[in-house]
């Protein structure tokens, strides 16, 4: 789930996602931001990719944020057609996190609606997958958020099956004991 807290590792990693930006004015002394740029100053109308956290700061100056490829109109069409079979992981591991942050920065209400729609469709599809015997190949198409939801669901299903077979009543050997003793010895 999106926690959005300061210490959340997924939140930190999501802020590293590259976002295309475009300057509207010349920026003094910021030439190093664009690798292809030689001079010290960043000229107007230059386009480059910046991590999300930097893009958010740049936006306060004279820079426009351009949406990443997977939020642009052409890709939106295929997302709206059937979000459940698209491999979002190939686009971004943090699709929803980046999207949420972008809606906050760019105040894009359409994007928010799109995110909600995609999320709901994919979660419903996932829940169906979790209940039937699952195919691990599906994990390749999921973003980090979806993987955590999938794992939660699987955990519940396994627990339910164990409970139905009444496995909890049997006393089992401790994991610590069955583990090879060699590993436990201190050097």
């Amino acid at each position, binding site marked *: *789930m999106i926690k*959005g807290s300061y210490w959340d590792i997924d939140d930190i990693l999501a802020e590293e996602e590259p976002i295309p930006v475009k300057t509207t004015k010349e920026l003094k002394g910021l030439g190093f931001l664009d690798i292809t740029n030689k001079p010290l100053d960043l000229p107007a109308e230059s386009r480059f990719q910046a991590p999300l956290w930097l893009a958010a700061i740049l936006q306060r100056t004279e820079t426009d944020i351009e949406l990443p490829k997977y939020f642009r109109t052409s890709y939106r069409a295929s997302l709206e057609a059937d979000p459940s079979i698209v491999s979002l992981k190939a686009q971004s591991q943090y699709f929803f996190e980046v999207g949420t942050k972008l809606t*906050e920065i760019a105040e894009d209400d359409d994007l928010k609606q799109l995110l909600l729609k995609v*999320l709901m469709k994919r979660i*419903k599809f996932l829940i169906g997958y979790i209940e039937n015997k699952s195919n691990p190949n599906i994990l390749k198409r999921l973003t980090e958020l979806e993987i*955590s939801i999938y794992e939660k669901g699987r955990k*519940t299903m396994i627990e339910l099956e164990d409970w139905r077979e009444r496995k*909890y009543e049997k006393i089992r050997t401790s994991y610590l004991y069955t583990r090879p003793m060699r590993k436990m010895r201190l050097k």
Partner: protein
Amino acid sequence: MEIELSMAETEFFAESQLITIVPNFREDQIILLCGQFGPFRPSIPLDVPLWLAIFLKKQHKCQIVPPSWMDLEVLSNKVEVERKTEGFAEIDFHYLETSSMLLTHAQEDIKHKSVIGRLIQDLYDLRTAKIRDIIKELKPENSKLKLTNIAAIELQTLRRLLVCTFDTISQINRKEEQVEDEKNNENAAPQ
């Protein structure tokens, strides 16, 4: 850390429900954390917690009287009602745990145990199908689900998934002012 209930814990809660037993031994009143039970007199029925009933049953010291809803006729009526109504039919909150425990440990006290086991499985299947329908109708606009009369285990299968989904939706939905507010609160907290 997130606090999560496991199935074993759900069953633990079910074990504190009262159930009627017919003891075959003589004993004075006993005092437990959950209350006082007894005195035990042979063939005089009394109510004890389910875990105590099963504990005594394992030592062949009592006969368990199954709860009223575990009757063949009542259960088959329930299955009919469940099939006809749209929402969940009213049933004991811990029906799955209780029946599962009784069918394992007190088989000889339950009449028609195989039929009852099958009816409970039918009931469970019907209800899971309804849960699946509810999930299908989930929409981001209304984060409300009608789960009246849902049972403990069924709720347990939904809990982790739904909490996670609704949290994510609310994170996507929240407004910028709220983010600012939260940031201010975070800054204010350490002082």
